[in-house]
């Protein structure tokens, strides 16, 4: 682990220097102090930045796993109980529109300060996109496919696992991607309740009035978000039906 951090830290430093040099070479107008200070800060504190990025990543991944398990289960259940579905989706919607600061504040009396609180709040936020996509993904399957399966004598359980879930997977995965990217942003705010991650950098930057720290934190969050979206997108594409149907 230490080694990985060390190597990646070097990479960061080189990248920052390159960027700095290129920027210097071109006659671009920018606030010279802030840019240089940021690059400078990143290259000096790259170890810390990386550590915080990993912490951030861990928070997001753990939350995502919990959220997927809960949301997909709920989504499947409500796909069988139509009358129930709108209520559940409504509740998820309400959860999602609560401002993140308020949500975190609600969580503190329940779970105290720290990582758990952050995870809990993030899970609640990510329910809606995954639950909704699981539900619509299953409901909007071609009814003929489900009817054929049922008519041939497949049990409801087998239809769910062999037909419905595999076919709804691209839609479910789109929901997971939405949730993941959203969560990466909100996770930064979770530092407020001591959940750790890049938010720490941003918050202490704000309180100290140290702009390079804020920018470094924001860059870290963006990198994670883009990388996550990309990975989930291509991961899904590789396993998707379209990928396999091209030539059989």
């Amino acid at each position, binding site marked *: 682990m230490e080694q990985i951090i060390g190597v990646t830290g070097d990479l960061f430093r080189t990248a920052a220097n390159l960027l700095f040099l290129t920027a210097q070479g071109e006659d671009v107008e920018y606030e010279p102090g802030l840019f240089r200070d940021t690059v400078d800060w990143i290259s000096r504190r790259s170890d810390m930045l990386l550590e915080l990025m990993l912490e951030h990543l861990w928070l997001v991944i753990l939350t995502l796993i919990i959220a997927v398990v809960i949301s997909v289960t709920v989504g499947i259940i409500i796909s069988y109980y139509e009358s129930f579905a709108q209520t559940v989706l409504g509740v998820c919607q309400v959860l999602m529109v609560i401002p993140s600061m308020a949500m975190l504040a609600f969580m503190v009396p329940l779970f105290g300060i720290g990582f758990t609180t952050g995870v809990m709040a993030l899970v609640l936020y990510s329910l809606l996109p995954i639950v909704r996509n699981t539900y619509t993904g299953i409901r909007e399957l071609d009814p003929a496919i489900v009817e054929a399966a049922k*008519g041939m004598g497949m049990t409801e359980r087998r239809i769910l696992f062999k037909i419905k879930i595999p076919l709804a997977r691209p839609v479910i995965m789109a929901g997971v991607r939405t949730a993941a990217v959203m969560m990466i942003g909100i996770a930064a705010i979770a530092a407020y309740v001591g959940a750790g991650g890049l938010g720490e950098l941003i918050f202490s930057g704000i309180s100290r009035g140290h702009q390079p720290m804020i920018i470094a934190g924001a860059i870290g969050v963006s990198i994670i978000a883009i990388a996550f979206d990309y990975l989930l997108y291509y991961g899904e594409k590789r396993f998707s039906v379209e990928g396999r149907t091209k030539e059989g």
Partner: protein
Amino acid sequence: MIKLEGLSKVFPGHNIPAVKDLNLEINEGDVCVLVGPSGCGKTTTMKMINRLYEPTGGKIYIRGEDALQMDPIKLRLDIGYVIQEIGLFPHMTIEENIATVPNEKQWPKDETKQKVSEVMTLVGLDPKVFKDRYPSALSGGQRQRVGVARAMVSDPPIMLMDEPFGAVDPITRARLQNEFLRIQERMGKTIVFVTHDIDEAIKMSDTIAVMREGELVQHATPSDLLSAPADEFVSNLVGRNRSIKRLHLIRINEILDEVDRAKPASEDAKIGEVEKQIEESDIRSVIVVDKDNKLKGVIGVSDLKRKSGEVAGDYCQDVTDTITSDATLNDALSVMLECGEGYVAVVNEDDQYQGTITLGDLLNVVKEEG
């Protein structure tokens, strides 16, 4: 084999029953076609047989057993099911699709594989070519064949088919129908077939059950239905041109022997002889075949002037379309009308010439039967 007794279905929230006190008996090995306008309850009736819909009243007996007391999953596994939309699973290969029921029944893998390739061959899909493809790579007609293969793979004694050939073009439909009838002749399954197309009903059925507004109006053989419709509704359904509909009931091979027609000319016959043959022929043309009796072409009066040469082969024109002898007379009529000719050449599967059917032959049949 299948006996429906006082069967009724009222959907929740509806006052009018979809099916009302229906009594119907289908003999083993028969194709019974349920026909009627949309909303007449024919699909509902069919879906009650495999209990996709639970009847609200009445009894269903399958081989004397009360189907309503059986485990619906077990019941369905022994009833083949084909629907118009086919409902192939897009994420599975053709082989996996067809193996659905064997997998549910947990057959051994080898047996499943073998049976799948058998049934694919039966419906005219080469297993080597198609088994690893996905449904999206198939044409409409091929998908429909997969649908039928999937329903037949475990050799169920009963099959339910809901407008199975409804979604393909007329030419493919006629071909699928003929293939299906050929398969059915060998398999002798008990089939409940739903359609709104009376022509298809007449062609496919051993018996036809005409339904209207949830009630059975008449259950009879196609021939009886045409000659003695029970009421105005049925006679309107079968339509005015009943004589033409009879053409659905007769296959070409049934009349081919009776038709007395000049022999085909071989491709190396002297043109002088062929000319005489054409003069005598009632269609003013002569069919030309090669050594293996394979169809080579046709020579008409005009071809004699237009071309030159010594033997028949030099004069012959390609034939636009042919027909196989297991097609119906109605199919033959369609081909004639499409090609704008007064005759059609009949060939077997190897393209060998079997005879010629003319419009005059069709007229004679209609006259005799009518």
